[in-house]
Every structure is written in C-alpha cells, then in structure tokens.
C-alpha cells in the first residue's frame, strides 16, 4: 500500500484505523474536524442564500473574482512548495527543505496581503460585517480561514526551525488543510452565483 512505509507515526497500530493514514494521526483528526466545521459553515451559507438570493447575488457581484482567483493560485503554489519541503527533508536535504518552506511561507504572507487589499477595498466602500447577511457570512468565513493561514504561518516557522521529518510533515499537513478549505470556500463565495 505504502510508497513510504517507514513513517514512524503510521507503523504503529495504537491509533487504530488512523494508523492507516500517512503522517501524524492527530493532524488527520484535525483535518476531519476542520472539514466538518467549515462544511457546516458552507452549507449554512448555501441555505441562507436560498432565502436571500438577490442579496447574495448583489453581494457576490461586489467581490473581486480576480483577487479571489489570485489568492487561489497563491495558496495552491504555496502548498506545492510545502510538499517540496517535505520531499527535500525525506531525501536528507535539510537546507533545501528550509528554502522550500520559506517559499511556502512567503506565499502565505502574499495571500494575507491580497486578502487585506480586498478587505480594505470593501471598507473604503463602507462595507463591513454588519452590512447584510451575505457580508456577515463572507467576513466570518474568510476571516476564520485567514486566521488559519496566520496559524499555519506560525507552524511553518516552528517546523522550519525544528525541522525533523515528522515535524515538517505535520506542519505541512496543517498548511495543506488550510489550502483544502480555501479550495471549497473560493468557488462557493466568489464563483457560484
């Protein structure tokens, strides 16, 4: 089954079914939990949209799809660099791993900069979290996600400093989870209208 069968964390059966997953089992518990929480959030957004279609369309029409798309490209590229960092570490190239991880972190910062530009533009047009239901959900979902990006950046710094393979795999897994959430958030908030 495994291309990389010597994972310290996946060899043991002490985690039950979670032992069959690659990397740190606790991170998979977090990934499933986050998918459930954000999934409920997203379905709540879709349900609220049923009752306020015109308001949601108007709100979505005020979002900049290009900035959202740019942030998607930034985040998937950052995820690729984080995966390259794990590869470099697994191949015994600790310095290379740090370089790839630095690139991943820099793109994470770029994501936050673009998000800040978007928020500033909305503020300049007098739009805030209390404007209407659409923007309340917009700010809650994208803001909660942005907080995960900040947390992910902190984790990348920590695992870049203490860059054992297990640490890197765990930090990168959190980063990929942040990427995964955005890949669902982006179409439903920006594209499906």
């Amino acid at each position, binding site marked *: *089954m*495994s*291309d*990389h*069968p*010597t*994972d310290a964390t996946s060899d043991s059966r002490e985690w039950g*079914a979670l032992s*069959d*997953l*690659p*990397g740190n089992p606790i991170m998979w518990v977090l*990934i*499933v939990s986050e*998918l*459930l929480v954000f*999934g409920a959030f*997203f*379905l709540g957004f*879709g*349900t609220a*949209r*049923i009752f306020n*279609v015109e308001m949601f*369309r108007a709100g979505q*029409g005020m979002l900049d*799809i*290009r900035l959202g*798309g740019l942030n*998607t*490209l930034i985040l*998937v*590229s950052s*995820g*690729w660099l*984080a*995966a*390259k960092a794990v*590869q470099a570490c*697994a*191949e015994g190239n600790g310095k290379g791993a740090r370089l790839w991880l630095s690139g991943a972190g820099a793109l994470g910062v770029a994501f936050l900069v673009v998000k800040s530009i978007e928020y500033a533009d909305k503020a300049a047009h007098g739009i805030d979290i209390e404007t209407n239901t659409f923007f309340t959900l917009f700010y809650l979902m994208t803001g909660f996600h942005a907080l995960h990006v900040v947390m992910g950046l902190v984790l990348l710094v920590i695992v870049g400093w203490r860059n054992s*393979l297990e640490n890197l*795999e765990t930090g*990168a*897994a959190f980063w*990929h*989870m942040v*990427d*995964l959430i955005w*890949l*669902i958030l*982006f*179409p*439903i908030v*920006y*594209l*499906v*209208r």
Partner: protein
Amino acid sequence: MQPTESHSDWSRRLARAWMLLVGLTLVSLTAVLGFGHAEAGLPAAAVALVASYFKARAVLDHFLDLRRADKGWRGFFSGMLVAILGGLMATYLIAA
C-alpha cells in the same frame, strides 16, 4: 520516512498535481468570468464545484499523500467532499 519513489518521480508527481490545481482554477475562473459578474449560471456553477472536487482530491492525494491510505479512508474523504459540494449544488438549484 525513507522514500521508495525516486527524486525525479516524486518531483514530477508533485509538479503535475500543482499544474492540475492551477489549470482547474483557471478553468473555473474562465467559466464564471465568461458569464460576466452578475450571474454565473448553472453550467458555470457546476464547473466551479466539480473543479473544486478534483482540486481538493489532488491536495489530499498528492500533497497530503492520502493516495497511500487504504480505499476506506479515500472513500471517506471523497464522501465528505461530495456531501459538502453536492449539498451546495443542491442549495444553488433550490435557489435558482
């Protein structure tokens, strides 16, 4: 973790996953922007949500290495994605 995949195979696999993610993002953007900013319409919404599924699978399988897990886990995550994205498509159709 000692890789059994060669450096070049591993690099190529990750690069292909990244290119798929970029490509599907551009397809989604093109589908929606092609309809203008007011209303994307059902085909564009379907393209965006289906693309989102395949992007999420690429991240799970190649960046998070879920391809190494057994079928049960892969099916579980596919099911979660289908439930979330299918549920959103359903809300879109109801609202249409």
